[in-house]
């Protein structure tokens, strides 16, 4: 009989196993989306596919590993699961996000007992489709977005499925990179599997199974405690997504959140229909986004497992933007997925200001610059998210230049690395002071301005920027943030300001200006501490005129606050509102 304390030790080891496997993939991958953006997650599930432990680089995969494992069990069939198999799956509608996000799943056997599964979902940089990099903003059917892996064997009993591998190689534009990712992906899976097997050998299979059950029920117990601390009742929020990806028509999104002692329900059924363009968020992504905000407001630092989410219910109407049906395109799914997190955020922020700020720039602002490099005739593609401004919050200004809530331990590439690796010159990378940020007692943070000058005979540019028509929200009398957009400058042509573009042709000397918005403000700007306003003037964030106009603060020529004047002006302004 294993004592409680040993079970504690086993639990820690299971979590450590997921982390080991996570680190291994990141250190060996060939795609920047893995090693810089950390757009992947590694986890261990039990034999039914329920989440036991997960290590994340971005929060958005918090519902995608377990669902993918469960789908694989269904597709493969329990009786055809063998030791050293590896399954491959990326179907958005049942268990996925977009086709680039490929999940590999490996059963963990100790002798003949299936103990659980090791699984990693990661963004492969190329899976075929109509444009380089596979994801695009102009697709109207999933078939344009790359290869679909429906939950089949990539390895059987340790032997690679050569036919499948040949098929993949023949259908992707960068077979070297894609195969490199596949190798690293599979190797990292085995790391976790090996650790779990070692644990079973040391403590016995039954101890591990007990420990897994206990870990999940503790996860549930903890979340039930935290749920009690949240405000109870029904909360609503609504917003608009800029467009459907193809036309200029916005999409209404609505959430109703019900919180009680034992339920947390996110009801999205009133939201708009699935879009014509690629912005649809598959159900699995929708669930992940709801889990992300739920985790953030309950237990942001604890390990995540199935138990954490047993009290949750996410409702999304089939055929809607949050639960699209085949063959809807989903390759820029994050554009609407982010709104699930944001709606819950917006509905609850006034009630838990210690945990949530005003709205942030929200969009991944994903960009691709790609082409054939003149220097070595090899294809290149820089695929990146862009950082932006976050919202002000009780007691603090918003953060400037931070990746969005859908990204996480995501590193924006160094400009020096960009200039070596790609035929691009970075002319500037600074804060977006011009457009400003949401004003408030605590103001929003600033977005960025980044200029890419093309240093190649030709290249293409693909981008998808959300919150361009409808910037992020301020709260409690704080003003809204500012929009995300980009401008393309070409010789002899008018600058083109836009929010979405697919495979736009560029030539040498053309310049892409990437601009992200500032975060929303929190609280009445006329209540902002005049010393903070003064600092903003000294640091060059605002002018003296703006200090007066936006904040009602008079700054003297020798850079001091004129308190007397300020008081008079603010009294008038506050009463005038």
């Amino acid at each position, binding site marked *: 009989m294993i004592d409680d304390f040993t079970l504690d030790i086993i639990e820690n080891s299971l979590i450590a196993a997921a982390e080991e496997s996570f680190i291994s993939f990141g250190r060996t991958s060939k795609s920047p989306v893995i090693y810089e953006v950390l757009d992947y997650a590694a986890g261990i599930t039990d034999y039914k596919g329920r989440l036991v432990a997960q290590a994340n680089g971005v929060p958005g995969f918090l519902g995608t590993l377990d669902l993918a494992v469960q789908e694989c069990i269904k597709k493969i069939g329990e009786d055809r699961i063998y030791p050293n198999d590896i399954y491959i799956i990326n179907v958005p509608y049942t268990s996925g996000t977009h086709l680039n996000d490929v999940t590999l799943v490996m059963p963990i056997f100790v002798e003949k007992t299936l103990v659980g599964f090791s699984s990693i979902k990661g963004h492969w940089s190329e899976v075929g489709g109509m444009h380089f990099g596979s994801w695009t903003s102009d697709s109207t059917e999933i078939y344009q977005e790359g290869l679909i892996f429906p939950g089949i064997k990539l390895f059987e009993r340790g032997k690679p499925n050569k036919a499948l591998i040949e098929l993949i190689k023949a259908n992707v534009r960068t077979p070297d990179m894609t195969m490199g990712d596949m190798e690293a992906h599979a190797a990292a899976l085995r790391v976790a599997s090996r650790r779990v097997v070692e644990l079973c050998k040391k403590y016995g299979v039954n101890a591990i199974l007990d420990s897994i059950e206990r870990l999940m029920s503790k996860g549930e117990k903890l979340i039930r405690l935290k749920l009690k601390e949240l405000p109870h009742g029904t909360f609503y929020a609504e917003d608009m997504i800029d467009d459907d990806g193809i036309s200029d028509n916005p999409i209404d999104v609505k959430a109703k959140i019900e919180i009680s002692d034992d339920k947390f329900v996110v009801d999205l059924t009133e939201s708009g229909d699935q879009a014509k363009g690629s912005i649809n968020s598959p159900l699995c992504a929708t669930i992940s986004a709801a889990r992300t905000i739920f985790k953030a407001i309950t237990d942001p630092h604890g390990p995540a497992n199935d138990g954490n989410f047993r009290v949750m219910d996410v409702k999304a109407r089939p055929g809607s933007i949050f639960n699209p049906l085949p063959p809807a395109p989903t390759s820029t799914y994050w554009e609407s997925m982010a709104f699930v997190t944001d709606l819950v955020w917006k509905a609850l922020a006034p009630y838990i200001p210690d945990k949530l700020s005003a709205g942030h720039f929200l969009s991944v602002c994903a960009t691709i610059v790609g082409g054939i490099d003149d220097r070595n005739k090899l294809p290149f593609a820089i695929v990146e998210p862009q*950082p932006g401004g976050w919202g002000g919050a009780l007691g603090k200004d918003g953060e400037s230049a931070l990746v969005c809530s859908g990204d996480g331990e995501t590193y924006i590439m160094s400009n*020096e690395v960009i200039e070596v690796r790609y035929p691009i010159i970075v002319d500037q990378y600074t804060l977006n002071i011009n457009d400003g940020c949401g004003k408030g007692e605590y103001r929003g943070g600033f977005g960025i301005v980044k200029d890419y000058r093309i240093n190649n005979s030709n290249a293409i540019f693909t981008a998808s920027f959300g919150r361009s028509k409808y910037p992020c929200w301020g709260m409690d009398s704080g003003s809204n943030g500012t929009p995300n957009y980009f401008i393309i400058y070409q010789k002899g042509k008018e600058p083109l300001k836009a929010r979405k573009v697919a495979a736009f042709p560029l030539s040498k000397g053309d310049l892409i200006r990437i601009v992200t918005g500032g975060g929303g403000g929190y609280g009445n700007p006329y209540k902002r501490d005049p010393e903070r306003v003064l600092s903003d003037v000294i640091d*060059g964030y605002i002018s003296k005129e703006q200090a007066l106009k936006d904040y009602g603060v008079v700054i003297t020529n020798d850079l001091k606050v004129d308190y007397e004047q300020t008081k008079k002006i603010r009294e008038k302004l506050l009463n005038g509102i």
Partner: protein
Amino acid sequence: MAYRVAIDIGGAFTDLFAIDNEGNTFWSKVLTTPHDLIEGVLEVFKNSKIDPQKTSQILHGQTLVINAIIQRKGAKVGLITTKGFKDLLIIQRANRRDIFNLKYKKPEPLIPRYRIWEVDERTDAEGRIIRHVKKEDVKAICDNIIREGVDSVAICFINSYVNAYNEKEIKNILQEVINGTKIKISISSEITKQWGEYERTSTVVLNAIVMPLMSNYISRLKYMMNELGFSGSFLMMLSNGGVAKLDYVEHVPIATIESGPVAGVIAGVELAKLLDEKNVIVLDGGSTTTKASLIENLKIRTTTNYSIERSEFFPGYPVKVPVVDIVEIGNGGGSIAWIDEVGSLRVGPVSAGADPGPACYNRGGDKPTLTDAYLILGYLNPNYFLGGKIKLNAELSRNVTKYIADFYNVSIEEAALAIVKIANDNAAQLLRLISVQRGFDPRDFTLIAHGGSGPMLSAFIAEELEIPKILIPFIPPGNFSAWGLLMSDLRYDFSKTNIKRFDEKDIIDTINKGYQELLSEAKQLYMDETNIDFDYSMDLRYYGQEHTVRVEVMKENIDDDELLQIEKRFKDRHLKEYGFNLDSPIELVNLNMTLIIKSNKPQIKPVIKNGNLDKAIKEQRNVYWGKDFYLTNIYQRESIPSLKEIEGPAIIEEPTTTILIREEYKGYVDKFGNFVIKRK
């Protein structure tokens, strides 16, 4: 008679350890004087009664740099950057390390935005100067520097890692203009030639922040020691595991940032050399944390991925200087055991510290600590803690542990054993991190355990990780770091980012030219020295990957054959660490070179002690080893004769630490006085 003297400033004590040329050792200890560290240094010297006039060399370890940064007490710094990149320190890498925290706070930049100035200059990625620095621009900035009362200027330009011309140019112009002031100037290329503009900027800013302080410290210390008649050489500990001359440190004070824990690792390596051990893990068990470092083939591993103040949820501030690869967890003798919200038993990271300390100190500690658990189980002697300086009260330990026993419905001893197991498992995970996770098998290593709680921890960790052998050094825990300092060599690291694929035809030329460059950069440091050595290595990866693997290079002038060998070493390492290889070309990222100027090290003489083992038994005590109490022999370390085997279970006591020999193990004192524990 001539003395070599090591003076190590720690958080609590300033230690001195000295050796004369006949091998006699001296040591002395005083309280550290945080208001002015020099006071403690002078006092410890005075205390030791060593004649400064007869001192040939002083080796010094200090905490000035790290304290100034952590307490934000550095100089008023201004930064000069390339036009278009003014906000690098605010933007950073834009990552959210605490991913589920939606009220996350980035590291606050260490200089305000209004003290950052842009210059319209540019170097491209191939090192061509696109725009030169204009004198009039620099003069305008100088006006700002003076007006703002800046006392230290940091400079980092885009692509200066390929070509530092513009950085050097602006430094020259600045120096001319501010001539006569006390303003210090640091440029990034003099500290690191690795790519990554944010990381380089952060490094040079931190250097500028501590430069005036260090300069002042060094000149005062030199002056005062000279007053006392000292005229020998003066060396200071770096974070890379070596020492350096003062003029280097004055220039690059940031290179000493993590020198504190490094001396203990050096001591471990020197001990390993003495005993002919090749692979060791050095474990330092303190009262609040446990640190560990893995040494393969007697080579200290350094990394340039260090960030000060980095934690699980905070990215900290990058410092691109080589730092010995040491990992740390918040688990030590004073760590508090607690039950979390869902009923799991946890130990640390909160520690009872020295005040109030564990409950058994009887100073008001009311929470169970690891030390209390050790006492309950009989591992610690209540009358001989710190040589008897503190009387421990086991009843108090039992009282505070009772709630844990009651919660789980077990006996107090079982609860105490659980605390010990969990704390040890935390430490074992730490060792797993640096061994198994990097492809090393802990069974191929010897564990060197020092620090107050290191020897006790090691008994359990060795069992958990199946480490065959534990060594408890002959030098007392309090002096181990100072001894390491005394054994250090001069060590300077050079590194250059140089991206090139191995299948490009001029790769060998590139490598050889690169190493020649590094050699000429190092020249003035070694030209007057005799006993020198070079270590070469490369950071390599498969083409397309980002992260690199460090591979040894056997000579600076490589040929086809050595290139093949390097490839092979890379593949072996990649396979070992990550479990696979790829059919892709290998790519060079960094060339590294370490210059080592060997110091004259004292010969360690064997000390054979004869006698009767039984006479070293001071008492028998009931000790709880797992299932029940067992009457166990307790030995006094100083009385144990050499090379006589002690069967486990047994306990060895010495004034500052306690050694456990578990049932499956046996131990003996070797010819130098180290205590060796092996599996039966």
